[in-house]
C-alpha cells in the first residue's frame, strides 16, 4: 500500500475506533461506504453510539458512499488536501445521501500523523543539506569566510561552509584554513544545540564544545547569514490551538410600513392583493411602492390585482440557506416563482413560492408568452404578512 505524507489509507481506517467521538454519533443508525481507488472498500456502521469499521467488498446498505483515490483520501484526513476543493474539483465524490454523509465529519477526532524519529545522523545530513537553501545572499556582501565544523562522536563528521563572492558552498571535509572552526565532542550536542534544546554557554562551560579562530564571525555573523534551521519534525508537534467562537447574533427589529406597503400588507389579511399605478408611465407596481423610480413621481392610485396569475419565471433552489429570521436552514429544494398577477403587466411580477409537489410541473426559467396559471393558497389566520399567502398552486 502506498504511503502519502507518511500515512497509509488503512492507517486512517484502523484509527477510526480510537478517534471515535460518541457524542457525534447521537441518534445515528446508519451505514456509510468508502471506496478508495486501488486500495479497497471499507464499511462504517454507526449504531447505539458505537461504530464498526470493516474492510469488505460488500457496501450494500450504505446510505452514502465516498469515492476518492488514496492520496486525496489521506490528504483530506491529514489536512494536507482541502476537503471542499477536493469535492468541488471532483476528486472526492459522494454517491447517495450527501447530507447524511456530512455527519461523518463529527464522528471522529482529527487524525494526527504519528511522530517519526530522526537520528542524529539524519539531522546532521538535513542540517548541512539545507545550508545552501537557507543562505541569505543579501547578508554576504563582500564576505570571504569559511566556517568549519568538527563534530565528534559515533555520528559525527566534518563539514566546511565557504562563503565567497556571494556564493555559499558546503564540503563534507575540513579544507584549507577556516576562518573559524567549531568543535563538538559529540555531534548529538550540536544537533541539540541547533534545535534549541541546549544552550551554548552550558556546552562551552561543560567543555563539550569549543571554537577556534574568529569567534565573532561564528557568534555574530553566522546567525544572520542563514535562515534558522527548521526541524522537519516540528510540523508533527501538536499545532497551536486556535480559538474559534461560534455565535448566532439575533436582533429584534421594528419596521414601519409606511402607508403604501401598509396597505399592501393589510390587504393580504383580507385576501386582497394590491398594486399601485404610476400616473405618468402607467406601470403597475407590485408590491406597491411610494414612488415610481423611473418617473420619480408619487404613486397614489391603489388597484386590486389577481388573486390569480401566470408564472413568468421559476428557479429551483437546491442549496440550503439560513432563514434570516431564525438562522435555521430552509428545506430544499423549493421553487421560487415570479407570478404576473391578473391586472398587472410588464415586469411587475410578485415573487413567491410554488407548492412543493408541483415544482416539476412548472417550466423552469423564463416564460415570456404564457405561463402556468396559479392561485394563492391563503393562511387560515392572516396577520398582514407576505406569509399570509402560504404559497401558490396550479389553478386547475
Amino acid at each position: 500500500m502506498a504511503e502519502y505524507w507518511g500515512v497509509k489509507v488503512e492507517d486512517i481506517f484502523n484509527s477510526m475506533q480510537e478517534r471515535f467521538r460518541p457524542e457525534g454519533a447521537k441518534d445515528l443508525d446508519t451505514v456509510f461506504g468508502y471506496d478508495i481507488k486501488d486500495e479497497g472498500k471499507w464499511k462504517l456502521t454507526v449504531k447505539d453510539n458505537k461504530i464498526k469499521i470493516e474492510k469488505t467488498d460488500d457496501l450494500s446498505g450504505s446510505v452514502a458512499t465516498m469515492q476518492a483515490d488514496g492520496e486525496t483520501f489521506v490528504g483530506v484526513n491529514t489536512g494536507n488536501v482541502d476537503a471542499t476543493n477536493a469535492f468541488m474539483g471532483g476528486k472526492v465524490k459522494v454517491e447517495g445521501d450527501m447530507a447524511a454523509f456530512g455527519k461523518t465529519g463529527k464522528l471522529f477526532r482529527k487524525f494526527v500523523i504519528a511522530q517519526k524519529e530522526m537520528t542524529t545522523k539524519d539531522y546532521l545530513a538535513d542540517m548541512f543539506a539545507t545550508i545552501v537553501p537557507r543562505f541569505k545572499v543579501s547578508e554576504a556582501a563582500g564576505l570571504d569566510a569559511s566556517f568549519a565544523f568538527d563534530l565528534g562522536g559515533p555520528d559525527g563528521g566534518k563539514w566546511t561552509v565557504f562563503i565567497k563572492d556571494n556564493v555559499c558552498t558546503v564540503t563534507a571535509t575540513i579544507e584549507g584554513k577556516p576562518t573559524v572552526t567549531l568543535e563538538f565532542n559529540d555531534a548529538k550536542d550540536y544537533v541539540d544545540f541547533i534545535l534549541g534544546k541546549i544552550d551554548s554557554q552550558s556546552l562551552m562551560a561543560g567543555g563539550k564544545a569549543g571554537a577556534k579562530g574568529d569567534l565573532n564571525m561564528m557568534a555574530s555573523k553566522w546567525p544572520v547569514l542563514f535562515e534558522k534551521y527548521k526541524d522537519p519534525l516540528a510540523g508533527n508537534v501538536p499545532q497551536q490551538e486556535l480559538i474559534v467562537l461560534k455565535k448566532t447574533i439575533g436582533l429584534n427589529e421594528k419596521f414601519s410600513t409606511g402607508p403604501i406597503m401598509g396597505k399592501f400588507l393589510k390587504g393580504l389579511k383580507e385576501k386582497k392583493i394590491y398594486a399601485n399605478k404610476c400616473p405618468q408611465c402607467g406601470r403597475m407596481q407590485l408590491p406597491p411602492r411610494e414612488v415610481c423610480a423611473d418617473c420619480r413621481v408619487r404613486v397614489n392610485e391603489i388597484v386590486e390585482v389577481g388573486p390569480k396569475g401566470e408564472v413568468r419565471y421559476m428557479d429551483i433552489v437546491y442549496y440550503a440557506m439560513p432563514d434570516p429570521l431564525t438562522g435555521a436552514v430552509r428545506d430544499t429544494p423549493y421553487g421560487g416563482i415570479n407570478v404576473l398577477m391578473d391586472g398587472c403587466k410588464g415586469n411587475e411580477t410578485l415573487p413567491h413560492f410554488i407548492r412543493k409537489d408541483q415544482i416539476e410541473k412548472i417550466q423552469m426559467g423564463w416564460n415570456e408568452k404564457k405561463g402556468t396559471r396559479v392561485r394563492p393558497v391563503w393562511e387560515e389566520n392572516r396577520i398582514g404578512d407576505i406569509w399570509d399567502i402560504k404559497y401558490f398552486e396550479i389553478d386547475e
Partner: protein
Amino acid sequence: MTTKQMKGFEDSYVVEGKMALPYTYFAGSVGSKFITTIRDEKKIMGVKCPTCNVVYLPPRQVCDKDFTDIRDNWVDVGTSGMVTNFTVVRYDDKHLPRKAPFVLALIKLDGADTPFMHILEECKLEDVKIGMKVEAVFAKETTNTILDIDHFKPVAERASIHERNAGRKKWVADAEPAIQGKQKGGKPDMSKPVIIAAALTGAATMRNQNPSVPYTPAEFATEAYKCWKAGAAMVHVHAREDNGMPTHDHERIRATYNAIKDKCPELIVNLSSAVGMGKTTEQRISQIIAVKPDMASLNTNTMNFSIVDRKTGKIFIEYVFENTFTMLQEFGKAMEENGVKPEIECYDMGGLDNTLLIAKQGFFSSPMNFNFVWGVAGGQSFRADSFIAMMNALPANANFTTCGVGPEEFPCIMQSCLLGGHMRVGLEDNIKMPNGELAKGSYELVEVAVNIADSLGRAVATTDEAREIMGVRKK
C-alpha cells in the same frame, strides 16, 4: 399604541422583525495564545514593541503605530494592576456580561503599558476609585473568551500601620529600668517599638527641589497627616512663609503648629530652634517659649554649616552655625522650664561630649533624647563605627534616633533601627527615594522606614508609645 395617525397614513403600522445571523470568529494565532494562556496557565501575556517600547495588552500581531512585527515578543504582564478609569453600568441588556449595576473598569496591569477593559467585582460600587489596585480572578469554568478571567477584584492592601498597631499589645517599659549595658556588646534592645519621625521641610529644602515641600500651615497639616498615616509618630518642623522662606515669626509658627495639631492631635510636633540661617539667638528660642511645642531641637556645638559641592569640593555658601555652651545651656533650660522636651542634635562626637558636660548641671530631664545627624557639610559623614561609638557614649537610659543628609539617610536609619534606636526621615534631609526617584512627600520616606522596621521585626511606635519612650508629656 395610541399614536395619532397622520392623515393619509392610516394604513401605516409597525411590523416586528427579527434578524438572526450565524457567525464564526477566529481569534488568530496571537489572540488564541492570549486566551489559551489565560485559560490553561492563568497567566496574562502581552506583547512588547521593541521600537516604541510599549507593552500592548491585549496583544497584537503588529504595533499599529510603527508597524513592527511583535507577534513573538511575549511578556508576562502579571495579574494585578491599577484602575485607570471605570464606569458603572446601570442598565440590563442580554449582551452584557453581568446584571446591572456592575463596574466596567479600564485596568492597566503592572507589566503593560495599555489599559484594557474588564469587570470589577468584590467591591462596593462607591469604593471604586481611579488608582485602586486590582488583581485578576480566573474563571473556574472556561469559555475560550476574555471571560476566562472572570473578573478583577481589589487587591487586599497591606494593613495600615495603625491597624497593625491596634492589633498588638501596647508596649510598656520594663519595670527594671533599661540600662545602657543592654545595648553594649552587640546586643541591641529590639524590644522597644521604633519611633519614626518625619522632618517635613528643614530650612533649606525648596519646592524647586521637590514640589511636595509644604509652605503654608494647611500644607504642613496635610503632609503631617500623611506621615502619621504612614507610621510617623513625630514631625519635625521649620515653619515657612508662603514664599518658602524660613520664618521666626511667632504667629506663623504657631499657626503652622496648630494646623498640624488640629489635623492630627496625637502627633508629636518637634519645632526647630535653629529656624534658619542668620537668625538671632533671641529669634531662635523665643518662638519655642511662645509656642511651647511637644519637643524642640537643641543644637550642641558651633560648627561650619555650609553648602559645598559634594563632587568637586567647591564651596557655595559659607556659614557658621552658632551654638555656644551658653546657648546650649540657656536653650536647654528654657525648653525644660516650658515643658518642651529637647531633642539633642549631635553632628559629631564633640557635640555629644558638649552635652554630657553641660548635663552635669542636672537640668535635663530623663530620658535624654539624642539625634545623630550625618552628612552636614561641617559635621561628620555617616560611618557605621562612628555610630556605634556615639551610641556607646550615651548616658544610661538615653534614647537615640538618627538622620542623614541625602543618600546617607537610608543606611544610617537602618543601622539605628538595627541597634534599637529610632529613625528620622523626610524632605528636610533627603528628597529622593532609595531608587533615586523624587519622593512624593515625606510620607513616602516614612514608608521606607516602616519597611525597614518590618524587615527587622520591630514594631513601629504609636504616638502614645513614642511619648512614653521619649518622656514627652501629653499637652
